[in-house]
Every structure is written in structure tokens, then in C-alpha cells.
């Protein structure tokens, strides 16, 4: 069973034809819309690599049915206009908070979502607590923690 899906992706109204009822948002983004910045890791909701924002809130796109976000606004790591994403990218770059980079889109999007949810002045410890669902195997999280603590230095 398939149906057309209308949604906004990174600020653009988008219509995707013939999306199966059981398709996950991760696959719609990656394989129908070509937005491969959102990474496929575990597909079981344990690693956070596939995190995207739906109406500004973090969701695991591997556990979200595409049709469940119909009409919604989806933000992925590719969004070049989102000011929170820009701020997060800047602090990650400055702190060297990435190595292989596979978890990076998930961290970047999840942190941007936390800034939207908790406010741009949210305490770093609160933001770090909100990133516990994102796994990184390379950095030991040390540089990611520095990036979050360095957020205040990045212009909003």
C-alpha cells in the first residue's frame, strides 16, 4: 500500500509520490529525497545517527513512519538556513568534535533541537544530558563536550 506524502523538508514544500505505508522517514529522506546526510546506523533507535527535527523537535527517523510526519516540517543536517544548526556546526568545527563523522549529523541536529526546545541560553549540562541518546565511537565524547560548553562563544 502506498500513498503520496506532502511535507516540508528544510523549509521547502515537498511532495513524495508512492510512499509505502510502512516506510520509515529515514528511508524516505535518504532514498527518495536524496538527503543522505541523515545517517543510517542501527535502525533500532539506539545510536541516534538518524536524528532529524520534526516541527523543531528531535525524532529518530529510523523509528518514525514517513506518513506520520505528513504536513510537518522536517529539518535535516543539510539545512543551510537554520541558525541553530549553523551555531552548532561552528562550535563542533572549532572544538574538533568529530572524527569519522558518521554520528556527527545526529549530534548536530539533536543539539540544534535542544537549543530550540530549551532556549539558546540553556545550561551546557542540560544540553549534554539531552545528548545521551547519541552514540559516538571515535571521540570519547571529550571534544563533543567541549563543543557544547563552547556554544556560548558562537554568535546566535
Amino acid at each position, binding site marked *: 500500500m502506498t500513498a503520496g506524502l506532502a511535507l516540508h523538508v528544510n523549509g521547502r514544500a515537498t511532495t513524495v509520490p508512492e510512499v509505502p505505508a510502512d516506510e520509515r522517514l529515514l528511508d524516505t529522506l535518504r532514498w527518495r529525497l536524496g538527503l543522505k546526510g541523515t545517517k543510517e546506523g542501527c535502525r533500532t533507535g539506539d545510536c541516534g545517527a538518524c536524528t532529524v527535527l520534526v516541527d523543531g523537535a528531535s525524532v529518530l527517523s529510523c523509528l518514525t513512519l514517513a506518513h506520520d510526519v505528513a504536513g510537518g516540517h522536517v529539518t535535516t543536517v543539510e539545512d543551510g538556513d537554520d541558525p541553530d544548526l549553523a551555531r552548532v556546526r561552528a562550535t563542533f568545527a572549532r572544538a574538533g568534535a568529530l572524527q569519522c563523522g558518521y554520528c556527527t549529523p545526529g549530534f548536530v541536529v539533536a543539539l540544534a533541537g535542544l537549543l530550540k526546545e530549551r532556549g539558546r541560553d540553556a545550561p551546557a549540562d542540560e544540553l549534554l544530558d539531552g545528548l545521551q541518546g547519541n552514540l559516538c565511537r571515535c571521540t570519547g*565524547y571529550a571534544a563533543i563536550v*567541549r563543543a557544547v560548553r563552547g556554544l556560548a562563544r558562537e554568535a546566535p
Partner: protein
Amino acid sequence: MTAAVRPDAAAKLTGSAPYGTDLDLPGMRWGALVLAPVAHGTIRAVDLAPARARPGVTAVGAADLPALFPGAQGDAERPLFPTSTVAYRNQPIAAVAAPSLAAARAAARAVRLTIDPLPAVGDLEAIFPAWPGSDAGASPHVAAHVRARHGDLEAAFRGAEHVVGETYRTASVHQVALEPHACVAEWTDGSFRVRTSTQSPFGVREDAASILGIPEASIVVDGTWVGGGFGGKGASLLEPYAMALARASGRPVRLALGYEEEFLLGRTTLPAVVRLETAVTGGRIVGRRVRLLLDVGSSLPGRDFATGYSIGFLLGPYAAPAFEVEGYAVRTHKPPFGPHRAPFAPQCAFVVESHLDHVARAAGLDSEAFRAAHLWTAGATTPLGQTVGAFGLPALLERARATAVAWRAAAPAGHGVGVAVGFWSTSTGAGGEAKLRLGPRELTIVEGEREIGSGSVLVGLRAAAARVTGVPADRIRIEYADTARAPFDSGVFGSRTTATLGRAVEEAWGTLAATVVERLGRPGPLSVAVEHDELVVAAGGARRPVRALLADGEAASGGLEATGRHFGKGGAIDDGRVVDGAFYPYTDFTGSAHAAEVAVDGETGSVRVVRYAAFQDVGAVVDRGTAEAQVEGAVVMGLGQALTEEALWSDDARLENAGLLDYRIPTLGEAPPIEVELVEGYAGAGPFGAKGLGEPPIIPVPAAVALAVRAATGAHATELPLTPERVARALKLL
């Protein structure tokens, strides 16, 4: 930290970096593997017809290979698909390709396998219940045997004041790179083109050629960005299957593992049992006996490297006047053994450090002083008879001990501080080549392998080349090339990449510089500067832009080229001490000394690492930011091995926790603050004395944590990982 932004940061932060899992070619088919449902069994029939009856499905089994690869002589010992016997559960028996992943998986499920199950061996101790009391040598399960000895061991033990014997068990651990294995293979005009997420494009080419029985010249491997390797992407895994499917379907075929399959099919460190006996007289070790049973899964007999290499680490960086080591590589019905960041060395350090700590306590000695007193120093002789080179470890251990003293003074009740060491060697023996191209505006390094995240290629190699050549790092570009165009290199593993390729760059630059100086016409040391966006070279008072020195052909191809190579040599080991099997000499001696402070919950046995300090012998710092990041990342990966990570195998070789929920790696909240100190001045095998850094900092971690737990509670752990249950048992809470 004021380090420059990594050159790959922008692509990775905007999602534009294409990894193996992102591969998508026009007309591509999706592949899936048909996996053996039993760990051991006799294959009676493989019926692909139900899969082939589905629309757009191509299916390949063992019977199809002769027609697909006429005249090919594949490696009989490791066939693409087994024809008679299943060697391990989830061994690929056939492969299918279909227009979608869902269709491919459905087709794989439709394949009818008739396999008569045979008894499977999952537990190496079940094979040798009386070991080490009885010899394991005659068993058909033994894939390799190594033994070395020196000195009068019997006399040392007979007359010793203290003899301490213990048995340790270490766990099977998985690499858990976040990106699963993924590749796409194409067959066009009689040759294969394979795009794959790999630590070693040349290794994949060699492996695939050997498995399929076709010439290496008919395969071109092109790496993609790599979402973590840690040893798991060092050899071919999926590529030959994708190639067979591409050959059969005439289309590009993508093959990727789901994350559960990543655990089930991945090749990694398997369980081990170690028996140690140590004799002490007058506060000195007089004799050591170490025996190892190492599970190598369904690795091929005679091809096991792990045992002979690992057993050196079971002696630790410690002197012993008399010793004997013996190791058996034991075949079980698990997947073949594979490398995992510093393969088996963290487990060895846990065993050695915990045991020597136990020995010191039994002899009434201070554990750290006892270990420090026996540590190798430069110029000393290793148990296997190799002369120790420049070695920072004795000095590093003193730094770690000083840190521990300060932490202990401030530690509250329930906390404990442990200190442990480890050693490693830069694997420059796995050789490589570097091609340099000096152009008008930049120096290019042509490279076959891709950055895997550590920074060893995009940051380390560039920084090393800048130091060697004098060309500013921002004027050095890494040009990725496929195996048809790139100079040979072994791959990104063994903490070798920056060191080996840096030495190859030295050689290539020697050739280039000689040519440039000759063209400048005045002898003298060459210097390079940037002026008006151009590279300008000078020697002996002559000074010209590079552009002006290039012949027409060179200008057309982008610059003056030269290739250098480096195949490092280890020192000599004393063959007189080797009784059986292959042992491996070290190219250099890299030390790590760590201090860990833990808090242990006295009711549950739960361990929290409060803070951590890592002192790392680096020879020379190549790039400080990425070097420190390697240490931080390795420490936390090691904390997983110390506390939570354990692949659980059933008695019949079934992996029972194939997923990230049940195989727990450290999370952000569990990572402690880490102090990193890079210690220079003890030269290693790389350019300007740099030592490899990817693996060494993981080695002491489980040991440091175990000793901290012992300091906090008195609990003496002889098994990894230190789960709450194990700690509670050691504390007699359970």
C-alpha cells in the same frame, strides 16, 4: 584548544560526505546474503529457484561460480560459499540481488537450504576441560601453536620465595563502528570496479582476487568515506559477494549489512583464557610461565597471526630472567577472528597488570613500585631477545604514579585509583608508498586509502609532509585515487599510516628535492615558500617559482612527480628462544601509562569512572589536536571493554547480544574527564621519530580500571568486563 579546523569538518557537519552506506548508482540492484542458520552442519542442498522465480532477482550460489568466473582458481581454503560444511552460524551460503532491499531480503528468505546440523563448539574451554593440566597440542581444533622459553625456569620456580598462579578470562568485543559495512560492485568491459567503505582498498583488491580466483588487475577498488573502522574494515567482507552478484546480474550491486548482521558477521576479538604463574625471590621476578588459549573462531589453520603476536603482549613490558610462554589458537564455530583496535592487547595488559599487582600483594610488596622495578628500559633485552629501543614508558609510569598519589589524597570513601601500563609497536612493517606531485601552487600527495576518522591521512599525513618538505600544510593536498592510479599502501591499521606514509613521503621528497635543486643549478638545501599564491623554491642562492622549473609535460600533468616507499623492519628476536610457531619483532617501543579513579557502589557492584589521566609516548607530536583526540577516544573505547562490552556466545556459538541495546558501548554520560599528556623525545619508527598513536592509548584502560576497582573495594577481578555482577561476586555480595 586552538588547533586548525579539520579539512573534513565542513563536509561532515553539513551531511555532504558520502560514506559507503550512501552509495547509489543508476540501475543499481540491492543485494542480500543468505546466511547459514546453524553454526556447524553438512550442506545437502541449496535451492535458489524460489528466489530466482521472483521478479528481477539474481541469485548466486557455489554451483554458479564456475560459469561466472570461467577458469578461476579461487582459494580452496576460503571459498566464497561453502559447498559441503557450514563453518559458522550466519556464514553466507548464497547471495541474491533484487530491485529493492525489501525484495532482496524476501528473495534471500525464499532460498531453500537443506543442512544437516552437526554439533557446534562455542566454548573453547569445553574443548580442553583439563587445560592447562593436559596438553592441547594434539587436538584438531588447534589452528596454531606458539611456544618460547629462556632460562632455567624449573630452578627459578623450585627455589622461589613466592609462587603465584592465576587464571584469567577475557571477553569477545566488537568494533562497533557506527557505519555498517557497505559497498557497490560493478562489472564493465571485463573488469570490476568496487566502491567500498574500507580501511584498505589494496587489501580488498588482494582478498577479492584471491577468493574469486581472478587477477588483481581485473579489480579496481575505490574507497569511500569511512564511518569508523577500528580494525573491522581492514579486509574484504562483502566485496566478493557484491562482485559475484554484479557479474551475474550485469548491473551495479549494492551490498550493505544491517546493524544486527554487523555483529553477526563481523570479525573481531574472541574470548581467551590465560594461565599465569610467577615466581618471586627477594622482591624480584625470577620466573614467569604464561599459557594462552585464544579462540580464533573459524579462522583458517596456519593463517593465524593473532596468537604469535598477542603472546608477546602477555609478557608485558617487563623483564624476566627465566620464562616460558605457550599459546594455542583454538578453532570454534564462531566467525573468523578479526582485528579490533590493538588486537587483544588491552586484554593482555589487563591480565598482566592485574596478575603482577596480585603477585606484589602476595609478596608483601608495593604493586606500582614492583612493576616499575621490572619495566623495560631502553637497551634492555625483551624476553624474546629483542633489544628495546627508545622507550618512554618508565618516565610515563612515574608521571601516572604522581597523578595517582594526588588523586588518592583527595579521594572520598568508596573511590579507588589504579595505575596501569601498556606497550605497542608502530606497524610500519606493513609497507606503503606515497606519490608526491609538486605543482605551481601546491604539493599533492596521491593516496589510495581514505581518511577513516582518526585524522591519520587528512591531518597527520599532511602535517608530517609539511614538516618533512617545508611546504606549508595549507599548501599540501591529499588526492584520493583508486587502486588503479594510487601507489600501493597496506591500509589504515596498526597505528602505521602517518608513520609509514610519512617515511614514504620523506623518500619521495628526497627524489623531488634533488631534481628541483639540480634544475635551480646551485647546490644547497632546498627551501619552499609561498609568494603571490605561488610555490617558490630556493637553493644555494638560486630562487625560482616552481612553475618556471616544470617541463611542458610536467606542467600539463600538474607538476613534478616522485614516488617514495617505506617498508619498516623490526629488530631481531632471538630464534634460540623460540620453540615453536612464529613470533613477531617490534619496529619500535611505544609506551602508555594511565591512571583511573573509580567510584564503586558497595551494594550493586556498579563502577563509575570519575576521572582519568593518560600519559602517551608519541615520539614526536605530528598534530597535537588529533593526537590528543586519539587518546581521548581510545580511553573511552577501552572503558567499554573494561566495564560493559562483551559479545555473549552460547555453547553452540550463537551470538546472543547482536545489537546496541544489549552490547553496550559507553555513552556521553559515562565518559569521564580525561587529562591527556603527550610525551615526546623517545623516537619511534615514523618520520622525525613519530610513533603510531591509533592503538596504544586503548591498551592500559581495562587494567587501570580493574586496579582502581581493587583499590576501592579489594575486589580482585580475573574476568573482563567488570560488570556489576562480576564486581558484586568478587565482593561476595552475590
